[in-house]
Structures are given as C-alpha cells and as structure tokens.
C-alpha cells in the first residue's frame, strides 16, 4: 500500500495541471474540464486525508463536492450554450463584457 502522502502529492500534481489548463486554453469547454480536474484533485486529497485519520468525514465532503460539481457543470454549460447562441464564436478572449 502506497503511503497517504503520495496520494496527496498526486493530488497536488493534478491540481497544478488543472491550473495551467485554465490559463493556457481558450475554449471555455476545456477550461471547464480543467476546473473539473482541479475539483477532482481536491477530492483525492480529501479521501487521502480521511484515510489517514481513519474517519469517513473526508468521503462525506467529497460526496457533497460531487453534487455541487454536477450542479456547477449543468449551469456552466447552459451559460456557455447561451453565450454561443448570441455570439456564434467560442473563445474566452472575446468575452470581455458582462453585457449580452
């Protein structure tokens, strides 16, 4: 069994890759996927901490993170679709105003 700190280290690596993805990419969909990657990395850290402490609280928190992530993806994709209907282009660099 690998030590718990390895899991936390892997979580750090995945989170950093997600941050780079958010900065580098122009497609809002891929930026969204990078955010999911970061949420997932945080979840992995929660489960590893819970395993270390011998407690299930970490897993309960991950359950709530999953539910919030599902709601977030649904709303975010709806917003992206709505923006695409108005603009016909999909690049975050074009979206510099709050007005439709």
């Amino acid at each position, binding site marked *: 069994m690998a030590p718990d*700190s390895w899991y936390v280290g892997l979580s750090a690596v*995945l989170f950093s890759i*997600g*941050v780079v993805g958010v900065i580098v990419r122009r497609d809002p*969909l891929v930026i969204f996927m990078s955010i999911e990657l970061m949420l997932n990395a945080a979840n992995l850290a929660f489960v590893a901490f*819970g395993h270390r402490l011998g407690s299930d609280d970490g897993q*309960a928190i991950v359950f709530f993170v999953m539910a919030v992530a599902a709601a977030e*993806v*649904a709303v975010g994709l709806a917003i992206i679709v709505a923006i695409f209907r108005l603009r016909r282009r999909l690049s975050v660099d074009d979206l510099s105003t709050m007005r439709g």
Partner: protein
Amino acid sequence: MGVVAFVVIAGIAVGSALGLVAKRNPIHAALFLVVNLGAVAVLYLTLGAQFLAVAQVAVYAGAIMVLFLFAIFVLIPGKEETGPDPRRSYRIVALPVGAALLALLAAVVVVGTRGAGSPAPAPDGVESIARLLFTDYLFPFEVTSVLLLAAMVGVMLLARRREG
C-alpha cells in the same frame, strides 16, 4: 504490489491530465478527462472508498461527461483552437505559474507529512459513510437536494429559446 499499482495508476492519471491540457480538440480533451476520472476512481478503491469510486464513475464519468459531450456536439462541430493567439504574452506565463504552484504544494505536502505516524484503522466502508450522511451531515445532504433543484430550474431558464 500496492506501490506498483499506485505508480501505474498515478502515471495514467497524470498522463491523461496532461493530454487534456495539451490536445487542441475538445472531444479529445473530454475523453482524456474520462480516463483521468476513471484512474482517480481506482485510486479511491485503493484507499478503501468503494462508495466514492462507484459514485465517481456514475456521476462524473457517466453523467457529467455525457453533458460535456452533448455541449461539444451542440457548440462546435469539429472546430479546434486555431489561429494566432491574441493573448500570447499572458499565456506564456502559464507554465512558470503552474510550476511555482506545484513547487509550493509539493513543499506543503513534504513538510506537512514529515514525521506522520501510522494511519488509523480504516472505517468499514459504505455503511459508515451512509450513517454519517444521514446523521451528522443530514442538513447539508438536504440542502444539496435543494441546490440540485435550483440548478435544474436555472438551466431550463438559461437554455430555453427566447420567443420573439
């Protein structure tokens, strides 16, 4: 044995994450994300979190990724990121920023786990997390259902076609 399994699965997870960031086609990125979520689900299993592993596959790799693929099909038929980058100077700093963040997090992990004792005995899986969700976390659990309902109504409002 466990260490070898961890290294292999962690390699798959990191590789698919890099593929997500590096590939230009959003569909490839979505499929890489599925691989990554699956690898993390296996890591949950190795940590004794069977319930979360199943939930990860069902909710993330199932529902959320299908949503992503639908959005990709609706939005961009095969379109990729092309052309010159209008914000190139900003994006060049992405790698140094990511490397600095990774160094910081790695330092936190190394310092934070130094001298850690042996892990506590593992709790007994699905039953104990169910007990936890319906006792200590009952209120957040119910709030989650309200959140999902609100998200559903909001998405319907956002996604409907405006008449006239």
